[in-house]
């Protein structure tokens, strides 16, 4: 009889009983609705133990890779510890390098703690020690790098970003917890075409995902579109051009809403550009990042252009009020 540990308590699961029913029998009600593996309301995460294959059927691949499963379809075969949300330890690090990438974006490189593991494209939550102010920043580095990289956009009145931008210096200590996020590359379909699109510092996780895909030997075409209001807001253009020059399958398109586009780029609304340029997006793996209105509009356009909903991974930024 497998034991299920949840929030510090142990529950015994009877033979042929689902985890959802078992907890309910013990008076623990997880959110649920259809109880047949369709609605995914009871999505739960295995912190210890492996969920049966049947319990991950239909779960988005990047979530399944992190141990998420459906409690209503899970007949445990071994002891498990489950949680509704991920709990992550706090890490201490320090700033190794700080470089301005354009007038409003700075790149921070942090020391990589030895016991920290993540997937390119995930984000961490940076904590300011003096007042515990916490903000999320995407990782632009890949696990093979010996540092963590963040792209910080200076938000007017933004307490964390102005502090990181104006005050934090090389050698300063910095704490964070994480990683979080389910927008990352999976190496199971190396030949599928990929579309990466984002605006502003939405480039950070996309840059990580692009380099991760190449490091994993991705052979299908990879199209990366990076947008800004005007050319001055783009960054890492040389690095992205170098990746495109060095790999036949990588295509980089800088996009600007106003003014003249840089060489090889396009002028127009990023929301429309990928579907217009690539035509049918059927079969594409898609990664989107940036402000929520842009990400949501892109998701809809890209879905309408033929990409399957389950293949669209997105990471909309949410700006906390200053």
């Amino acid at each position, binding site marked *: 009889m497998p034991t299920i540990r949840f929030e510090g308590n142990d529950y015994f699961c009877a033979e042929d009983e689902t985890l959802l029913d078992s907890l309910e029998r013990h008076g623990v009600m997880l959110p649920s609705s259809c109880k047949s593996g369709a609605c995914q309301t009871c999505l739960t995460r295995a912190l210890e133990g492996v969920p049966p294959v049947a319990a991950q059927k239909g779960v988005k691949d990047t979530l399944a890779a992190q141990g998420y499963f459906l409690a209503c379809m899970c007949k445990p075969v071994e002891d498990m510890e489950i949680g509704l949300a991920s709990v992550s330890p706090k890490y201490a690090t320090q700033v190794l390098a700080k470089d301005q990438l354009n007038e409003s974006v700075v790149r921070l490189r942090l020391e990589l703690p030895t016991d920290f593991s993540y997937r390119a494209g995930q984000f961490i939550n940076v904590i300011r020690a003096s007042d515990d102010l916490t903000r999320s920043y995407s990782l632009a580095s890949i696990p093979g790098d010996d540092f963590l990289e963040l792209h910080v956009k200076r938000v007017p009145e933004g307490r964390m970003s102005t502090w990181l931008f104006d005050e934090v210096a090389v050698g300063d200590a910095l704490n964070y917890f994480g990683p979080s996020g389910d927008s990352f590359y999976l190496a199971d379909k190396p030949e599928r075409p990929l579309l990466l699109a984002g605006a502003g510092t939405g480039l950070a996780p996309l840059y990580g995902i692009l380099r991760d895909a190449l490091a994993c030997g991705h052979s299908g075409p990879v199209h990366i579109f990076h947008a800004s209001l005007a050319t001055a807001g783009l960054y890492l253009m040389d690095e992205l051009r170098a990746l495109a020059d060095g790999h036949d399958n990588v295509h980089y398109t800088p996009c600007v809403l106003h003014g003249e586009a840089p060489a090889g780029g396009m002028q127009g609304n990023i929301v429309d550009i990928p579907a217009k340029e690539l035509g049918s997006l059927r079969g594409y793996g898609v990664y989107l990042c940036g402000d929520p209105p842009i990400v949501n509009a892109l998701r809809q356009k890209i879905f*309408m252009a033929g990409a399957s909903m389950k293949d669209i991974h997105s990471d909309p930024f949410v700006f906390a009020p200053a």
Partner: protein
Amino acid sequence: MSTVYEQLGGEPAIDAAVDNFYRRVLNDPYVTPFFENTDMERQAAKQKAFLTMVTGGPNKYTGMDMREGHKHLVKMGLDDTHFDHIVCHLRSTLADLSVPAELIKTVIGVAESTRADVLNR
């Protein structure tokens, strides 16, 4: 007698149907106001549950769920004409997937049976 769900090929077929169906719905300006401000991924999951149910696949949906889930939309003006549009998109999706006419009739019959609950009557 196997269900339409099984005859279609089970879950993978429903996944394909969801994308097809949802694209039709989003392309129909008569019903899109009811889908504004919804999380597309959650919406797709709900549509999968709906298509699973109307094809006789595994589900435990009740009339109560249908009522609760559509209450706010009825307040926004959801009525028979919108329901008719959705049924039409469902029929087109099934036809697109080469589902035989008599099976389509069965599925539409199940969808029709939810009309009163969906419209909170």
